[in-house]
């Protein structure tokens, strides 16, 4: 939940101590804004490094990067409680970092090492952390939507006031099981927020070519599920919309849909040259709508941090990512005995 501005701790900017900077949104504290910047930057740098390791052959198979979409998960996570469930598709690295999972464990799973979250047995698309209430990482398009709805069912069944944040892309927004799940969520008033990350392309097919109606936030109307379209490149807009949607779900009013208009800078996966869109289109988003650049500018304009302060954040992130990359290359491959473990829970 967004809290009123609290006293900042390590802020190098003297200007702010006397009069609060104008952030255009009274519910965000300078500290929180800085934290959002940091969290988005961590995802960006982590993903760039993952792309590099993939290029070096250290990461195999499919690898779907989140670069460009950072504001969505960071803005949403600003509103969650500890035991709120989070579940998403295979473009999941950003969600794991935003849930507070250890970048080392995530990167080591990408390289298929024993120090990875799934001991190297899941890979990029299949990672979980019960401790951080992150329920995966699902490789089948749309499959996480009924599962996320089931997590909401469990929360309601247990009466624990927690909600399920169920993320999916525009590519799965037309899947049958998505509507089956939405119907049950509305029917049973389950505490779930569906976050559609509309990055405009389901692999190489644009939303316009895949969806008879492109207003994805309205796709729950048949079930009476309220929906909203959000600027997914603006972390504060995401956060504000998320606060409202989560409150709706938590208070027992049932599901809510947020369509995040976002953009992925990279291809669908590492092996996608992205020929289905123009370089101009990509550049326009990068240069004019970048979610990190946007907050960086706000931080500077409001004098919350200066260039040196930003550099310090940058250095901190660089170290975290370097350490993760290092760990992921030196953590041993899983022991051969792991081949036969975790198939069944031994009763």
């Amino acid at each position, binding site marked *: 939940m967004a809290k009123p501005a609290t006293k900042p701790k390590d802020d190098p900017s003297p200007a702010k101590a006397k009069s609060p900077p104008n952030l255009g949104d009274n519910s965000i504290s300078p500290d929180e804004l800085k934290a959002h910047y940091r969290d988005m930057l961590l995802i*960006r*740098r982590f993903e*760039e490094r993952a792309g*590099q390791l*993939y290029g*070096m*052959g*250290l990461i*195999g198979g499919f690898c779907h990067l989140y*670069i460009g979409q950072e504001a969505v998960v960071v803005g949403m996570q600003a509103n969650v409680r500890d035991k709120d*469930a989070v579940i998403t598709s295979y473009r999941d690295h950003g969600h794991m970092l935003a849930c507070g999972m*250890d970048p080392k*464990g995530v990167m*080591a799973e990408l390289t298929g090492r*024993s*120090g990875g*979250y*799934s*001991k*190297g*047995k*899941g890979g990029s698309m*299949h990672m*979980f952390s019960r*401790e951080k209430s992150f*329920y*995966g990482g699902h490789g*089948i398009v749309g*499959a996480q*939507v*009924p*599962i*996320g*709805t*089931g997590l*909401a*069912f*469990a929360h309601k*069944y247990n009466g624990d006031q927690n909600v399920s944040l169920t993320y999916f892309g525009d590519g799965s927004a037309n899947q049958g*099981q998505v509507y*089956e*799940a939405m119907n*049950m969520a509305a029917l049973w008033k389950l505490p779930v927020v569906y976050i559609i990350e509309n990055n405009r392309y389901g692999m190489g097919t644009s939303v316009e070519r895949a969806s008879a109606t492109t207003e994805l936030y309205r796709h729950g109307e048949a079930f009476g599920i309220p929906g909203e379209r959000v600027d997914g490149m603006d972390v504060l807009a995401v956060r504000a919309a998320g606060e409202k949607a989560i409150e709706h779900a938590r208070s027992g009013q049932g599901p809510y849909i947020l369509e995040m208009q976002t953009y992925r800078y990279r291809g669908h996966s*590492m092996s996608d*040259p992205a020929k289905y869109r123009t370089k101009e289109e990509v550049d326009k988003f990068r240069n004019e709508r970048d979610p990190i650049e946007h907050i960086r500018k706000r931080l500077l304009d409001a004098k919350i941090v200066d260039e040196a302060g930003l550099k310090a954040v940058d250095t901190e992130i*660089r*170290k975290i990512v*370097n350490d993760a990359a290092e*760990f992921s*290359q030196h*953590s*041993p491959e899983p*022991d051969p*005995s792991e081949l*036969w*473990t*975790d*198939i*069944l*829970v031994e009763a």
Partner: protein
Amino acid sequence: MSTQVLMPALSPTMTEGKLAKWHVKVGDEVKSGQVICEIETDKATMEVEAVDEGTVAKILVEEGTEGVAVNTPICVLAGEGESAADAETPAPAAKADAPKAEAAKVEEKPKADTPTVAPAVAAPAPEPEWKGGTQHITVREALREAMAAEMRADKAVFLMGEEVAQYQGAYKVSQGLLDEFGAKRVIDTPITEHGFAGLGVGAAFGGLKPIVEFMTFNFAMQAIDQIINSAAKTHYMSGGQMTCPIVFRGPNGAASRVAAQHSQCYASWYAHVPGLRVLAPWSAADAKGLLRAAIRDPNPVIFLENEILYGQSFDVPEDPDFVLPIGKAKIERAGKDVTIVAFSIMVGKALQAAEELAKLGIDAEVINLRSLRPFDTETIVESVKKTNRLVSCEEGWPFAGIGAELSALMMEHAFDWLDAPVKRVAGLDVPLPYAANLEKMALPQSSNIVEAARAVCNR
């Protein structure tokens, strides 16, 4: 500290490519994420972005160069103001480098078990002697009693499916459960198998113990992605973190005169999948004891019932603790001349066949598999050592069926004990017809088992 930029691979199979174009020149400052060059392969062109910051100090591969091997250094970036930690980053390891061992672990990495070989299926404890007498009840009542008993014992257990609550069950298996447990725990779903199977999996991930009833397993084909990809595989794919204690149950196989789409046996489909347990009860005691075990089991369990058996009555122990072990077959009739292995409705037909065979002087041993995964190979092998002859029975199609697996297992474990090739009795390799005469021809009957047993006995 300078950094070498290496020729990247665009896909797992790429070994070399063309350096098509440089976007930077010596002396340029480069930021993370900035496009520095373009790479071309026969399949694609891709932009390469800088991961590190710095100044381009040297270009090692000129643009237009073809056949540049992956991981060849292509340029050098001179670092500026990098921290000591960065400077210690070693040159990137090439693909072929073996990973070095390091003891560091992720903090929440679960404790690893370390078996060294493919685990043999641990033999479950033999069935104990049950206290008290027996009650003569139908399979339907036995299933209901099992669910009610487990729901009384554990608040996390709930039942969901089509018509399970207000209608009291399409086949009346769940009759009375809504009254006892209320609408919170006995839940009518819309007719959307894919959705509610997935929702059940999510509820299980969230700590509940769902019993998901399919009106019949024919409709579970709509849900099979959730059953296999989500329920069966996630424990493994999560390195043991996630568990999915869920039971998928309902009638399987042919009912009577409902034609091909409603008359299929899915035993071999599910028995194929690691991560699942697959049970197929025959008697009411099987139904009650195995369903209680299934609900208590921490894994996803496929529980294959049979509509025709629902109304048949059997003796069931009255002991309130009655439960059966998963993975243990039962010798329903001891014999010395031929082993007949069956599951579900075919057990009854095998027992009928054994009576016929007895009249012919052939003493058949009938084994009720009860569990298809894990599979009790040991009990069958022990029986074959005695009889030296084996007939397998199933209602499903023969090709890649349970009988095919059983035959292979006997080749591996009992080859020297067999005096005749294993014989399969199975449904005919056709979609099940509607016409009464054709349906009867397509489904295996006890007379087919008699013939098969006589054939392997040369009698």
